[in-house]
């Protein structure tokens, strides 16, 4: 597609439920990133994919968080047993090859997750 697409744009879920967030990166971009922005905070790195593998998962806050990427394209971020502190805007970004080309990363519009 023309840009990075994320769905849903908004998600309200009850505490304890599982949620899946989807990211469709720009076609041809091999690097994909997940970040989140909590209220009043900066952009917190979660996980990085190069192709289908995730060489850096260091930002995932707990084992309730997981992500996968298939076909070198679409990625899903799954949060199990959601907690209220998981409420944030989850942002996905993609870039051509990650740091090697020192290119900019392009962001989707984000998924606003609210856990009630």
């Amino acid at each position, binding site marked *: 597609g023309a840009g990075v697409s994320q769905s849903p744009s908004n998600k309200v879920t009850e505490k304890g439920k599982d949620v899946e967030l989807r990211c469709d990166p720009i076609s041809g971009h091999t690097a994909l*990133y997940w970040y989140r922005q909590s209220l009043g905070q*900066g*952009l917190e790195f979660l996980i*990085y994919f190069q192709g289908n593998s995730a*060489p850096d998962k260091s930002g995932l806050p707990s084992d309730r968080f997981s992500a996968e990427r298939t076909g070198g394209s679409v990625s899903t971020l799954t949060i199990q047993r959601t907690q209220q502190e998981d409420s944030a805007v989850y*942002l996905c*970004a993609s870039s051509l090859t990650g740091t090697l080309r*020192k290119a900019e990363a392009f962001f989707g*519009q984000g998924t606003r997750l609210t856990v009630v």
Partner: protein
Amino acid sequence: DQQVKQNSPSLSVQEGRISILNCDYTNSMFDYFLWYKKYPAEGPTFLISISSIKDKNEDGRFTVFLNKSAKHLSLHIVPSQPGDSAVYFCASWGTDKLIFGTGTRLQVFP
């Protein structure tokens, strides 16, 4: 540890004047820096970047300056316009990811 720091959470500037947003970094290995702009309910959009081999990069009303010895960069917007009102994030490429500052909210008033 905050490797990229934006110490001013907000800045208010009159339309037509210069806006200067500052950013400091701690890792001397960082060699490529980017500025992003973010409007409410939208994802960040890329604004301008600079490589460490340069000390200045200009694109229209936007200029980024890099002072490697001070590990400091700044974004100048001149003249500022009301549409520039947004949150501005400074970022650097780390080993495999973009590392962001906490952002500066710029408000340009008439």
